């Protein structure tokens, strides 16, 4: 095919559930390509010499390589190429902010001057992962070395896999009763089905990784004590500390952190009211504060939990929203009402202490600051209120403080992020490594995965017999 012919192929739209229907069920929204669509989409790739897309992928997947195989219909080969660099393609194909990573740099998108027309790298990646059973991972001969991996989010899963592959005996410790980190308690079923995460964990078990749930490192056992039993430790405890806005009325009944709101629904399955013992709050008019993926997830979850109106309140404009473009689009389609350039000033309660309304202020964008972003400025006297019975605060989260608080040997920065050596990923405690959101601050799945991989390399080097 010539480049011209390739450019003539229409971008393959992703089949998805009807917005009206899906806003009331937990099934996955984006249904995935068929083999035919995946092949067609992959054949739009121009196989650019310079591979600009690869530069945009944090783990540097050989994108033109796997697309070429997919275009041939050899999805098995395509998946094998992907898996050289990424362990979680079924997850990343679904949740990567592609428009800001690989697809941002795609030549095809550039030619159409529209990133939405770039090769849909993530979607093809997802198809390969969904349609092919990965080969069983080879594990090296046992080294006799023991590695503890703390947390079970994407950073930890990746680190555990790479350490197990090197022949170390790996044990994973998770505080919750279920493994997967944010992938199971935060990101909802309708965006990332739990079975996909479960499959990855099964893969780890097949490689011989031992999994211990209900184990809070620092509480059930101090890290320093574990250090006596393990030759190396990886800390991937994430950014689980919910931030609040520090405004009046935030402790009223009906105000939740997005973490609580989503955990009840996802991890505890509270939406299945006939079965689950955990209750959820039946909000009718819900305000969600924030503009990231977490805010989108909370808004869309609110609809699925029966809300009549969901208002998303964000103090900048839509252009600055950190959420994935697709999620913003899906939220709008499903009926979430967007209030941009507005921010909550206080939450008002009734005599029983329940939320009855929210008071907001209007904002405008000021001069660009040092980072080049135009910062929002409140417009004096623009207060207005409207009735809501639920407020979900989704304005970010901070580093999980548990390990640092119980392990003085591990140095953290001002915000509680664990400090690591850039090459080895070792913390200030010898033999203890770290990666993922606990190091980066709330980031992305693929970055966490990449960090887990880098730390595993550090661990494997550290444990190398010499």
């Amino acid at each position, binding site marked *: 095919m010539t480049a011209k012919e390739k450019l003539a192929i229409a971008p393959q739209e992703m089949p998805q559930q009807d917005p009206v229907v899906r806003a009331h069920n937990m099934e996955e929204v984006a249904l995935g390509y068929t083999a035919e669509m995946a092949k067609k989409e992959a054949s739009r790739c121009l196989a650019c010499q310079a591979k600009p897309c690869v530069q945009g992928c944090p783990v540097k997947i050989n994108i033109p390589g796997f697309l070429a195989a997919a275009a041939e219909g050899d999805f098995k080969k395509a998946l094998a190429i992907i898996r050289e660099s990424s362990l979680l393609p079924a997850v990343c194909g679904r949740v990567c902010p592609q428009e800001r990573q690989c697809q941002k740099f795609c030549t095809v998108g550039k030619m159409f001057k529209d990133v939405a027309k770039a090769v849909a790298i993530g979607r093809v990646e997802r198809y390969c992962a969904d349609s092919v059973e990965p080969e069983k991972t080879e594990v090296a001969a046992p080294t006799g070395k023991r590695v503890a991996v703390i947390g079970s989010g994407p950073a930890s899963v990746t680190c555990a896999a790479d350490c197990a592959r090197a022949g170390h005996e790996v044990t994973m410790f998770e505080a919750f*009763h279920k493994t997967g980190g944010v992938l199971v308690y935060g990101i909802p079923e309708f965006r990332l089905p739990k079975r996909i995460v479960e499959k990855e964990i099964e893969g780890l078990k097949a490689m011989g990784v031992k999994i211990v749930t209900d184990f809070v490192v620092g*509480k*059930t056992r101090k890290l320093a004590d574990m250090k006596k039993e393990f030759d190396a430790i990886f800390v991937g405890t994430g950014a689980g500390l*919910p931030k609040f806005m520090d405004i009046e009325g935030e402790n009223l*009944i009906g105000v939740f952190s997005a973490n609580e709101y989503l955990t009840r629904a996802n991890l505890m399955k509270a939406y299945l009211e006939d079965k689950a*013992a955990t209750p959820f709050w039946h909000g009718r008019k819900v305000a969600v504060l924030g503009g990231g993926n977490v805010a989108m997830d909370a808004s869309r979850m609110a609809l699925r939990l029966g809300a009549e109106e969901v208002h998303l309140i964000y103090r900048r404009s839509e252009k600055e929203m950190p959420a994935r473009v697709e999620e913003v689009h899906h939220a709008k389609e499903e009926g979430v009402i967007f209030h941009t350039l507005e921010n909550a000033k206080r939450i008002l309660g009734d005599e029983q*202490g329940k939320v009855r309304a929210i008071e907001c202020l209007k904002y405008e964008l000021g001069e660009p600051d040092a980072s080049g972003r135009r910062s929002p400025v409140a417009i004096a006297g623009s207060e207005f209120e409207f009735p809501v019975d639920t407020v979900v605060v989704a304005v970010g989260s901070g580093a999980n403080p*548990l390990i640092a608080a119980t392990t003085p040997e591990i140095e953290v920065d001002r915000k509680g992020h664990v400090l690591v050596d850039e090459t080895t990923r070792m913390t200030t405690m010898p033999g203890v490594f770290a990666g993922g959101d606990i190091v980066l601050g709330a980031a992305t799945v693929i970055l966490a995965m990449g960090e887990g991989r880098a730390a595993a390399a550090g661990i494997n080097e550290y444990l190398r017999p010499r």
Partner: protein
Amino acid sequence: MTKILKKSQLSENVFRMTLEAPLIARERKAGQFIILRTDAEWGERIPLTIADADPLAGTIDIIFQTVGVSTKQLSLCNEGDSIADLVGPLGKPTDITNYSKDGRKGWVVVVGGGIGVAPSHPIAQAFKAAGNRVTAIMGARTKDLIIMEDEMRKACDEVVIVTDDGTYGRKGLVTEPLKEFCSLEEKPDEVVIVGPPVMMKFAALATKPFGVKTIASLNSIMIDGTGMCGGCRVTVGGKTKFVCVDGPEFDAHEVDFDNFIKRLGTFKDEEAAHKCKSGLFG
């Protein structure tokens, strides 16, 4: 999976269980709690105080009252059964001080209301072991609801029992003997209160005029118990605190009990509906 090694019934709605938990038994300190789930698929995470522990045997004891679906489910489990999940020890341990000085023994008064006696037991033990004189005030609605009397007598130098209806001990509320103690020339050095939120609110009000240091152990609604959800938050001294990681014990004179009590009722309607549907309640 965690095995239930022993079970007994202390009063109509109160049960005691010994659970196999070697790691928790080794690490736990007075004031800490666990979170458990009975059912692997649908269970709720419920927090319960560690009432006692035996590090050598590798066991912990919990004492709980059946108030809703999850505690009812737990009460239906028997010796030899297993529960799906158990995690802990969570929360900060009680800050134990020996107040003894210049030949005078320190004096700590531990107030336990209803089921609150269970969590107050390890706290009383720890203050005593540190060298203080410990007085317990145990309160309940009626005689049959008084639990752990023998153990409290063993753990403390002195026990005062009060019942609302006068069927056992003194008739009245825990606040009465508490006020009397605080009015003595030699006041208690510290008061620790554990019990129903309303009782804690009034006990805190009772000690405040005397300026006696008072600590309350809060039992807010929780999910993770590790600081991740903020569901357990309370206002203490005008600041938001997470009960599971900053507590569960706080300066009772600083706690906004009214907000705390209201927040505990967050899921009242939902729980009531659950209770009807579960078929566990007649």
